[in-house]
């Protein structure tokens, strides 16, 4: 129960900050009167000078560029066993050499560097798709709960609580094993299911804050119907913290994706490399070639770190309490 409570508290705290942020908008507006800047502009101004954010941004941009241009950047293709002829029973993993700086990826003799570069693609696709799917699910549930309240809210939030009460990786593994044939799509579904309750709870919190806000009351006082109130007045004003959270969740998605692939629940076809899957295969050679585990692990850590830095500094910049 304790970790679940902690999880819930953290999400609620974020939602509270969201309420604070929207309550803070009047100030931002007043500043704007006197030639100042709005909330978003001032957040950007602070971000631009924040080295933590810049590092995170650099890592993220580099990673995304590598993933997009992977086939051009990779020196070789990922499938051909170029170094197959060097594989011997005594030395099953050919080391680094001319043209193959990181050596082979195992007994198959494929180029490790190329596979790492190509693997960024799978990682990006899985991370982004899982986060988007989780975001979509969470927004639907959170909007339902926040807009209708009453028993809809109760039902949705209890469901969300049940999902939050399960350790996230365990939940993802359970979902992934539901599908008979693992593929990258089952991976995406499994990870997004874990993200849904986080987004739902967060959005519901800031929707409730919006529901009590002056401008929603003013809209109701003019007879605006529930639909427009929800989608024009409440939702757009509630999305900020959810989108910030999405940046943070991207990092978790990437780690979760690696974890599931490592456990063999990812795409079994190793012709399209994936970092977690490479990490899993590296176990076989851990005694002779620990670098096979090191490189994919390093990639995962660096990328997750970049997203986390970016997300945290974004959150901080938009949080009125930590503003300086």
């Amino acid at each position, binding site marked *: 129960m304790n970790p679940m409570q902690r999880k819930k508290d953290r999400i609620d705290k974020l939602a509270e900050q969201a309420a604070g942020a*929207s309550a803070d*908008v*009047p100030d*931002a*507006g*007043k500043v*704007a*009167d006197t030639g100042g800047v*709005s909330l978003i502009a001032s957040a950007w101004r602070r971000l631009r000078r924040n080295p933590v954010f810049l590092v995170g941004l650099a890592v993220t941009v580099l990673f995304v560029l590598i993933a997009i241009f992977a086939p051009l950047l990779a020196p070789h293709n990922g499938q051909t066993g170029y170094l197959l002829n060097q594989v011997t029973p005594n030395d099953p993993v050919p080391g680094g050499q001319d043209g193959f700086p990181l050596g082979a990826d195992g007994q198959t003799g494929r180029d490790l560097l190329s596979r790492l570069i190509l693997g960024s693609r799978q990682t990006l696709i899985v991370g982004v798709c899982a986060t988007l799917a989780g975001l979509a699910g969470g927004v639907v549930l959170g909007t339902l709960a926040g807009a209708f309240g009453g028993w809809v809210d109760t039902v949705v939030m209890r469901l969300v609580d049940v999902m939050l009460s399960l350790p996230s990786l365990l939940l993802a593994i359970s979902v992934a094993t539901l599908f008979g044939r693992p593929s990258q799509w089952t991976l995406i579904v499994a990870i997004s299911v874990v993200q849904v309750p986080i987004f739902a709870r967060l959005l519901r919190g800031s929707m409730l804050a919006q529901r009590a*806000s*002056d*401008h929603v*009351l*003013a*809209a*109701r*006082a*003019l*007879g*605006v*119907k529930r639909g*427009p109130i929800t989608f*024009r*007045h409440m939702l*757009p*004003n509630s999305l900020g913290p959810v989108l910030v959270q999405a940046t943070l969740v991207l990092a978790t998605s990437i780690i979760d994706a690696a974890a599931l692939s490592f456990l063999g629940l990812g795409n079994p076809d190793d012709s399209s490399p994936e970092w977690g899957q490479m990490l899993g295969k590296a176990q076989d050679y851990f005694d002779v070639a620990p670098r096979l585990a090191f490189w994919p692990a390093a990639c995962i850590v660096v990328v997750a770190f970049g997203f986390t830095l970016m997300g945290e500094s974004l959150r901080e910049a938009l949080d009125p309490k930590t503003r300086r």
Partner: protein
Amino acid sequence: MSAAAYEPEVRAGDSLLSVRDLVVEFGGKGRPTFRAVDGVSFDVGPGQTIGLVGESGCGKSVTSLAIMGLLPARGNKVAGSATFDGTDLLTLDQREMSDRRGRDIAMIFQDPLSSLNPVVPIGVQVAEVMQRHQGLKKAQAMQESRLLLDRVGIPDPARRLKEYPHQLSGGMRQRALIAMALACKPRLLIADEPTTALDVTIQAQILEVLRELVVDSGTALIMITHDLGVVAGLCDEVNVMYAGRIVESASRHEIFARPEHPYTHGLLGSIPRLDGTRAGALHAIPGSVADNIPWTGGCAFAPRCTNATAICREQSPALEADPTGIPDHLLRCHHPILPGTDSTHE
């Protein structure tokens, strides 16, 4: 629908909204019930402006929210009646009420910035009301919005339409809110402290916009305020509220010329004035509304009243005609300050 269209139905002078014995109780499980509004009655007719005056927490905003049906359903009990053009608004369900809000009755709030949606351009927010109630197409509604913004005195309305609330000044935001409220030419407008958040010069402009509206279109206006300056400039009738009840009700002239309730007296005495003969401090009313006692155990104002005697703490006074026989001057007090007997300030 223009102002002229409803004149045959309701002649000037007749009551458009008639509130009778309005009671609002807050409460719920485990909390003691609190009577925020306790038997409030008043009338307002087309082209008439009445004021609900009192300190923060005296129930004036709750009164307006109850009339609009905007109090949260849970934990609140509303009793009495609010008859608008023959229909008791308090008996309507949320959907029927929603159809009337913005079309028949509109409301303007205190803080213009927080009352506007920060992520939607002004024009869209004004147009939204017309699309909702008059079934206009978006382009048409935007066209109308431009005319409305122009009418409430926003310069360069075509450009302002596309701007967001934070890009406008405080006065312009309040004008935009007024434009939204006026979009469907409501017959009754409730203004809840519309000038409190504004500079004095802007206040005067906003009050002028509202005054023109009442005079030109015959709109009925309920002005909720704690600012007696606003009352002096705008209201025909004044209802002074204290702890959920009306304690004095009279025409503007009467209230200012002969305030008889010690509370009204105190309110007027709290205004700084340059021409005052009284040298010295302002006459602050001791205590605050938060100290109030329920009306059941005597007069709620007794603990703060300089005229209070034993009877005030035992028997709750009724709202009665002025003892000196002035018509239409109602008073809820055992010991009113009558002309000639004014002793509180000396």
